[in-house]
Each structure stands twice: as structure tokens, then as C-alpha cells.
């Protein structure tokens, strides 16, 4: 029996010593965050699933071959694998573009399952879907930092190192990403959706304008 509260590092050790269940706990703990990050980069649900599988298979190979050495930091390590795979795919797609719809599905799927159009319409109305779409619309550098910090949980210093900018630039990009997201949510009526504030509707923030000079961390 595995304690669900075990740390990542404890789970990796258990898995290395032959406890398969430990790996399942690790996978289920981080799958959504990593899958979402990959999806926001590649913009295709099916490709994102493939890359999620590739990410964890790579991680399994490294752990089982005894080459894992991340001083207990499993998530940043697996996040880096996912990010590299997603970026590689994104770059190769730029050379061979494929038509993908706003909700991440391919044109072929819609043609094949045209009877599910009502469901598709509902999906498009979904606040979370709209928020994801707004994230995808952010300027490239801002979106990159947002995905790396929020979903892949890399530190700002690590983001700065990986993207070749100063930590202040990484912090500034994150700030603008959140400000722009907020502005676009207001413009698209996403901000006050009750689904996003089920418990504390009174705490919906008062909107304000941020100016470009409004910097700092």
C-alpha cells in the first residue's frame, strides 16, 4: 500500500526498488499539469497525449536504468523532458503545418463525428476552453514563461537560464502574461464566470488598467 502523501522523491525510490504502484501515483499526480503544458504548446490533444506518453516513457527508461539523478526534484526534471519534446514537435510542425481547430481537435475529427456538433458547441462555450484559448493567444515569449512557470513549475531562475534572458526579463514577461490574460478575459467575458468562482463570488476582483510601465516583481 502506497501513502498518497509520499513525496516525489520517495515515490521514485520506491519505483526504483521495484514498487510499480509508486510510479502510478507519480504519473497520476503530475499528468494533468504536464499534459496541459504540452497541449498549450502543440495545440493538438492527440499530439499532446502522444508527447505525454513519450515524456513518461523517457522518464521510466532513465529511472529504471539507474541514470536518474535529480536530487529529489522529479517534477522539474520531467517537465524539462516534456518541454523539450513539445518544443521539438512545435518546430517540426512549423515546417509541416497541420490544420487544428480552436478546441485542439483536428478538422478530420469534426468531419468524422459531425453528429456531435452540439457537444462541440457546448465545449466551445465552456469557460475553461475559452481561457485556454486566451492563453494560446498570448505573445510567444509571455506564453512560454506562463507555461513554464505555472504548468511545468519551473522556477523563474530556471526559466531565465533556459530561455537565455535575465531573471528580471522572465519576471516581467510573466507579469505581462497575467496582465494581458486578465485584460482579454474582461474583453471576452470570462472573468466573472460563476463556474470559476463557485465558493467566493464576492471576491471577484475589481478590474483595473495596467500600464506598460507598471513593472517589478
Amino acid at each position: 500500500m502506497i501513502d498518497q502523501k509520499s513525496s516525489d522523491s520517495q515515490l521514485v525510490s520506491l519505483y526504483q526498488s521495484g514498487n510499480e504502484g509508486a510510479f502510478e501515483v507519480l504519473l497520476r499526480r503530475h499528468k494533468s499539469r504536464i499534459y496541459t503544458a504540452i497541449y498549450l504548446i502543440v495545440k493538438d490533444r492527440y499530439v499532446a497525449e502522444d508527447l505525454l506518453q513519450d515524456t513518461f516513457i523517457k522518464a521510466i527508461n532513465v529511472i529504471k536504468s539507474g541514470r536518474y539523478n535529480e536530487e529529489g526534484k522529479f517534477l522539474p526534471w520531467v517537465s524539462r523532458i516534456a518541454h523539450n519534446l513539445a518544443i521539438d514537435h512545435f518546430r517540426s510542425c512549423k515546417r509541416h503545418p497541420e490544420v487544428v481547430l480552436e478546441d485542439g481537435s483536428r478538422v478530420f475529427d469534426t468531419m468524422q463525428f459531425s453528429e456531435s456538433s452540439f457537444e462541440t458547441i457546448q465545449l466551445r462555450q465552456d469557460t475553461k476552453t475559452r481561457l485556454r484559448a486566451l492563453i494560446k493567444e498570448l505573445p510567444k515569449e509571455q506564453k512560454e514563461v506562463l507555461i513554464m512557470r505555472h504548468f511545468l513549475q519551473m522556477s523563474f531562475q530556471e526559466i531565465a537560464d533556459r530561455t537565455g534572458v535575465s531573471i528580471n526579463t522572465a519576471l516581467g514577461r510573466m507579469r505581462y502574461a497575467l496582465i494581458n490574460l486578465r485584460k482579454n478575459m474582461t474583453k471576452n467575458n470570462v472573468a466573472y464566470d460563476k463556474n470559476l468562482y463557485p465558493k467566493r463570488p464576492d471576491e471577484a476582483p475589481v478590474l483595473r488598467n495596467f500600464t506598460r510601465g507598471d513593472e517589478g516583481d
Partner: protein
Amino acid sequence: MRRLYSETSPEETKEIDKALLCDSELQRQYKELVLLKQQLDEVQMNPSEGAIQHILHYAHGLQEHH
């Protein structure tokens, strides 16, 4: 930003929290960011169970070889 993502040292956290208490406008901006961060958590998507099972099968297969 660093406070929002818990990257500040205890001393920095204390200083920032003190500033937030003294400045209602700063506090309001910070609350907005906290709410937005919560919303970002909600946009997380789940991969299909099939994809998860595929990974687990791979892990299982490899385990048997060791």
C-alpha cells in the same frame, strides 16, 4: 511575481506582506493575481485514461524485465 509563486525568502515574504498590508492598491492588484492564478489551475486538462494505461503498461513491461 516571485511572491505569487512562493519563490521569495522568508525575509522577502515578510517585507512584501508588510507592504501589502500598508498599501490597499497593491493589495488589490495582488489579490487579482492570486485569483487569476487559481483560475489557471482550473484550466488544467486531463489526458485520456487510454494514454495513462499505455504508459503504465510500458512501466509494467519494463518492471518485469528487471
